[in-house]
């Protein structure tokens, strides 16, 4: 008799344990959830063409298109100072950000110094030109911005993955790379010249940042 009861309670308990799903899958949409309502089954809906969110009119041609009077901009847009926090050091911050983004988004193909010898190229991607050829040395910042935004030949556009401000930061970093690859000993600050011949050893797992405590 008692055993019967125990078995019954045990079954009940198992039953309770197994009906866990009701609140787990609620009829609300989280990112990437399927929706039966729309033909393409996506719950995330594209914006109606022509929609402008408040404060996002994108009037600044220089900033958003990299163009001044319809020609590739020769300078960096003034709005970047605010985007990178203003003050005396916004340019350093922009360069640091540019370096970071370049390493994530561009090095796989363009290589870490921009010579066009990235890992993917070694595995069969079309080889991009080096950033250090004469033509690209002379190209204005607006041109690089345009290549990132609209793509170029075999390179698809990166505009979905790289935000506008980050694109400019990357362009600034490319400019720095171009300078660095053509630098002479005279460009190295006097107090650091010694390190050129006697680089400090780097221990395993250290990156240039952790080594210099930056």
């Amino acid at each position, binding site marked *: *008799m*008692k*055993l019967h*009861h*125990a078995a019954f*309670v*045990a079954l009940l*308990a*198992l039953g*309770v*344990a197994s009906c*866990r799903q009701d*609140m*787990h*899958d*609620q009829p*609300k949409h*989280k*990112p*990437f959830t399927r929706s039966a309502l729309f033909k*393409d*089954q*996506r719950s995330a809906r594209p914006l109606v063409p022509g929609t402008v969110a408040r404060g996002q009119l994108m009037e600044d041609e220089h900033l958003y298109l990299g163009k001044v009077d319809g020609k590739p901009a020769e300078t960096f847009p003034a709005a970047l100072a605010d985007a990178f926090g203003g003050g005396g050091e916004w340019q350093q911050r922009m360069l640091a950000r540019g370096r970071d983004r370049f*390493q*994530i*988004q561009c090095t*796989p193909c363009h290589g870490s110094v921009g010579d066009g010898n990235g*890992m*993917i190229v070694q*595995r*069969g*991607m*079309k080889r991009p030109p080096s950033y250090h050829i004469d033509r690209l040395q002379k190209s204005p910042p607006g041109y690089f911005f345009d290549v990132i935004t609209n793509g170029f030949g*075999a*390179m*698809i556009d*990166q505009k*979905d*993955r790289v935000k506008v401000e980050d694109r400019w930061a990357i362009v600034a970093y490319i400019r720095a790379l171009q300078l660095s690859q053509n630098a002479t000993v005279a460009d190295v600050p006097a107090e650091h010249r010694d390190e050129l011949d006697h680089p400090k050893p780097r*221990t*395993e*797992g*250290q*990156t240039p*940042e*952790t080594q210099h405590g930056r």
Partner: protein
Amino acid sequence: MAQVFPKSSNTLSKASIVVAGIVLGAVGLATININRTTYVTTQSMPIEQVVQFTHTHHVGSLGLDCRFCHTAVEESSYAGIPPSKTCMGCHSVVWKDAPILEPVRESFRNDTSVEWIKVHDLPEFVYFNHSIHVNKGIGCESCHGRVDQMPLMMRQNSLNMEWCLACHRAPEQFLRPKDQIYTMGWDPEKALGMTQAELGAKLKLENNVQSRTNCATCHR
């Protein structure tokens, strides 16, 4: 009238109370623990997808950064799954005609979605946010394991509440410097010559990391 119950039923009924107690206890323990088994959490079970995408190749051998594909992870609650356009950036040239990539090409041509099966799926009464974890110094590896060694994606951890809490009670066990969040196989001893305890204590102060165990942190 004869007795209905023999004398031995006295002992039997006492014994059955004990037995019932043991059985109930066992069932209770089992119900709690069954939810911890890998069978229920489907932890460590590789999941077959429509496209045999491998993190081993793309992260391990090609060295791509997580953010090349999971672009939203620093700034939003979800990490995001890359659109097929991201794949086509390379695969319109590399392995251009490979049959294995046909679902990706088809999705790119017709603007349809590749139907990836979700590997990590929290119940919808739980609020989770990637950006705070990443920005406070928790590496992808601490939650997702050695992704660079997973030919097929699998769940490294149970995602049970007790797992979240084990870290929320003492996050210093996992804190990393911010430039190592995306690194796989990072080891504080090798890189910085510090134990995790020393580093964790330091970073906890520096980044003002809190221990959050209030129910409303995750159930809001």
